[in-house]
């Protein structure tokens, strides 16, 4: 099954899907196929961090993963029923900003890694964040912003979360093109990054620590 990881790492979708079909035809455990694909995705992430792959390759890898999951998921359900997620994350682009891309990349990669992501979309008012956090009880909130004005909006959102008594057990991270030069703590954030992979690694660490 190393073929699956290899195909994913080399961004070859045809080879990936063919290897997945072959594995399923040979009655392999579908969960092991998913793990193989995740291993390939990890390798893509690692190449991204080395500067060999770029954001578009990262996006394409997550799309390939999802394509493979379309084939594998029914077999998992057949064999295991519903599987538990590794953790819960709420995400959204803050009010006043309608940029979707950065958030969607992180969402897709987290989902590929087995996390349950509740995506509120773009231009999300503070009250909607508060409601969803109350409902989903995530370990992490991810906020996205590409406009400078959105950074202070994030600060207002966090204030509302605090007022609702939901801040203490929640880690909050912000991503987006404009957050590179800000000091996270000045805006009530636990961390801010322009790098999707760095953000994901930290989210995974936080969730593992919260278990």
């Amino acid at each position: 099954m190393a073929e699956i990881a290899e195909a994913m790492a080399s961004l070859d979708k045809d080879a990936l899907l063919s290897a997945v079909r072959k594995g399923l035809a040979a009655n392999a455990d579908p969960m092991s196929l998913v793990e193989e694909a995740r291993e390939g995705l990890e390798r893509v992430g690692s190449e991204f961090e080395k500067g060999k792959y770029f954001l578009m390759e990262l996006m394409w890898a997550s799309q390939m993963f999802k394509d493979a999951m379309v084939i594998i998921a029914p077999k998992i359900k057949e064999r295991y029923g519903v599987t538990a997620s590794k953790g819960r994350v709420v995400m959204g682009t803050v009010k006043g900003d309608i940029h979707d891309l950065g958030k969607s990349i992180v969402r897709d990669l987290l989902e590929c890694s087995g996390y349950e992501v509740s995506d509120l979309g773009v231009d999300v008012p503070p009250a909607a964040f508060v409601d969803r956090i109350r409902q989903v009880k995530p370990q992490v909130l991810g906020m996205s912003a590409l406009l400078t004005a959105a950074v202070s909006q994030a600060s207002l959102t966090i204030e509302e979360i605090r007022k609702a008594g939901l801040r203490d057990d929640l880690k909050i991270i912000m991503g987006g093109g404009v957050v590179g030069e800000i000091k996270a703590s000045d805006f009530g954030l636990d961390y801010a990054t322009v790098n999707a992979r760095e953000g994901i690694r930290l989210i995974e660490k936080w969730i593992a620590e919260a278990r």
Partner: protein
Amino acid sequence: MSPVKETMSCYERLEVAWNLKEADRVPVAPVNCYIFPYLGGINMREMFLEPEKLVRATIKARELLGGGDNVDPNITTLNHLSMLGRAGWDQATLDWRIWDDFPPKGNLPSLYEKPIIEDYDDVMRRGFAPILYNLKLENNIHTRSADDFLFYEFDYPKVYAAAWRGFWEDQQVPLLMGGRACHPLDMLQYYRGISNLTRDIFERPEKVIEMCEWLMEYESTLAMRDAMVMGAGEVPGTEVIFFINGGPPGMSPRIFDRFFWPIAKKMIDTFVKRGFKVHCHWDNDLTPNLNTMKDMAKGLPKGKILLDLEKTDMKKAKEMLGDSICLFGNVPSTILCYGTPNEVDKYCKKLIDDCAPGGGYVLSTECETPWDSKPENVRAIVEAAEKYGQYRR
């Protein structure tokens, strides 16, 4: 420090920089867009539909912001993404809720990515209509009267141009541009959606290239037409085509070299061959692609290209491209909004130290000045050029 007498006009200073020589001082040109109407006290509706008011607001705001060697005439209000007059904003991009407010209660006019191109061949076969009249757009075009539509398509550009010609005659400050063009990949990012575009690039690359070639014609022609209407050859600065790439972000050199660069170079060459200058306003971090961009001015006369970079390493850009292309940029937006004049000053000094020696550099913002920047921080950019940018004392 006693003020140094400036011996050149704004336009001469910029011209010298475009020609990779040292002027009296480093030119400074923050890309002030929405901050002009904001500080000038007009709302978004007035900004978009009443050019005389926009010009007056610009003059007022320039005083608060310390001036600068050129002015952005906010061409986005005229033509956008190859849509017909005002239709681009009507259909694809504008959030109408904010029109009577500034600061906005909703969003600034922003690009809503809408995957309206489903079939590349259909668009190429039937022309721009499948995009322009796509019913997936929340468009107002079908509810507008024919008179209104025709006015904005054919007459409004002349009204707009007359207002900015008046600005030049009154202020003697050149304009940043006469027309603007987007790179076709940028257009596809909005019309096809970045997610679909990524899939297309990997699954059917030849079709993406074919579509880009096709879109290139639309964008180039419209930009040159706008520049002609704005006064190219008569009103200084309007001979410049502002050539945008706002995305897609994160192109690897492999994708950049195959999908972005050949089309970009073709468009640059076309503009220059037809007598225009090209201000390449290219967002994101393009540092890994600088090696390819070394050929940007190849085969073209000197002084025709300027490269305006957002997140790219300016020092590296100067090292690799400085002998052939004038560079422009890139004080970070967040410092302008959340920093202090002292931080801006330090940042500008470093940019000047890295990029100004030998000429061929214009001190400016990354992308554009956010509307909510602190005015004192924008002024600090202009002051830094005067303080650190003197070539001859």
